[in-house]
């Protein structure tokens, strides 16, 4: 059984994406590597927060994200989404399609839905939507709290940009989001 490990950086970026657009659905892809039984999700690339039911920019974003992943010697290993409604934790039809596309190239692809109820708590706010009961290790145990602090006290999420933002202004660094990278609290 494959297990999944999500880096702190990846978790915080997903959190930022959701926090930046609280009343909209957001989605993106997960990047990582597989080492024997563990898929390590090292980074994420955020895609859309606008017209998330429409496909053309999603397709282009996916292609570009894939190109970027490969240049970093990583693979697309999954998909994440957050709904604008707290009670909506199903994978949207668009999500199913994207997750399938990724699974065609990477067998152990995973799809996460953000658990809106848990976002403000110190618990990891992710639900897996492909394999039930899988092990997901999220960064450090205080990664969720760290994410909350960064948003609430530092507004770091306001510097975050996704593909939709990039399409309005091509100087936005949606593939790397270096301004939102945090020092790992691991020693």
């Amino acid at each position, binding site marked *: 059984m494959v297990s999944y490990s999500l880096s702190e950086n990846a978790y915080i970026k997903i959190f930022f994406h959701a926090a930046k657009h609280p*009343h909209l659905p957001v989605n993106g892809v997960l990047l990582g590597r597989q080492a024997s039984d563990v898929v390590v999700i090292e980074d994420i690339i955020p895609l859309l927060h606008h017209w998330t039911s429409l496909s053309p920019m999603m397709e282009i974003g996916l292609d570009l994200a894939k190109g970027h992943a490969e240049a970093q010697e990583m693979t697309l290993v999954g998909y994440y989404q957050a709904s604008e409604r707290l009670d909506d934790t199903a994978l949207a039809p668009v999500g199913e399609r994207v997750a399938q596309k990724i699974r065609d190239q990477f067998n152990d692809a995973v799809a996460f839905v953000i658990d809106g109820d848990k976002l403000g708590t110190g618990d990891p706010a992710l639900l897996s939507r492909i394999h039930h009961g899988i092990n997901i290790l999220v960064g450090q145990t205080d990664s969720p709290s760290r994410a909350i602090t960064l948003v609430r006290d530092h507004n770091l999420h306001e510097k975050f940009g996704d593909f939709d933002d990039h399409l309005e202004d091509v100087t*936005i660094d949606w593939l790397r989001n270096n301004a939102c990278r945090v020092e790992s609290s691991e020693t």
Partner: protein
Amino acid sequence: MSLQSALERLATYRANNTRASQDIFRDGLLVLQKSGFKKLGDDGKPFRWTSLEQLVLASIDVGRLDVADQCLQLIADKFPNSPRIDCLIGIRMEATEPPETALKYYADILDADSANVAIWKRRISVLRRTGKVEKAVNELMQLLDTFYTDVEGWLELADIYASCNQYDHSLQALSHVLLLTPQNPFYVLQAAETAYTSEDFYLAIKMFLTVVDMTDADDSEQLLQESTPLGITVRAWFGVKLCARRIAQNENLKSSSNTSAPKNLELLDELATERLRVAYSSSGEKGEIAKGRQEVFAWVATPLA
């Protein structure tokens, strides 16, 4: 942060109907605490009350119901029996009460006045967010039957259909939007992307090109080659390129709108490629380089078919 600049920002958000609730709350709270709203006065210019209304909505959005209630009381005291206040009260109710309570409240108002569009829209939005999508669509269609020129209504209908994978119906709704507001390139763009999603690539490419036509800067003095595509134009060129690829890869395409195939597909593809390369090569308005250039260059370089 001065009172004046806060008020100016609030006015801009109102003019653009932007839902930047965190920012509006920050600015609005400042004005409230400095009694800035009172100083606005209420003779001739209604900014005092529309700004307070704006703060009510933003406060509810960020969860500061205490501030919302405070402002709501101020407005209600000034305008008793106002339908606009009824709507605000309904929204405030939706924030804490179960949906059935809000629906009953709206039903009572609509019984007395069936043409209250604002309340009707609130009801439709509650129906949608509680999963009663079919009912929401039926009511929305009734509303649009009565109030055909309600662009917001047609946009909402298009969005509901798209979220249920009914892209043809979504496009039909958008066609009414385009009839009513033909000058808005964002709606043409939305229609182009919807057409693409419903696999009508001939229509999609045509609409993406229309967006370019509508948004490229006035090139009467400059040659097209000298201008850099910015913003929505870049998005449209990406769309053209993507459509060209799909059309080239598929010989037996059908267009549900009976749009004819584009002529000179290779030339369109070449133009789109060139425009995108320019967009990602120049230093744009801010003097900064485009990011992700390598990935885009690689993507546009992939041959048509």
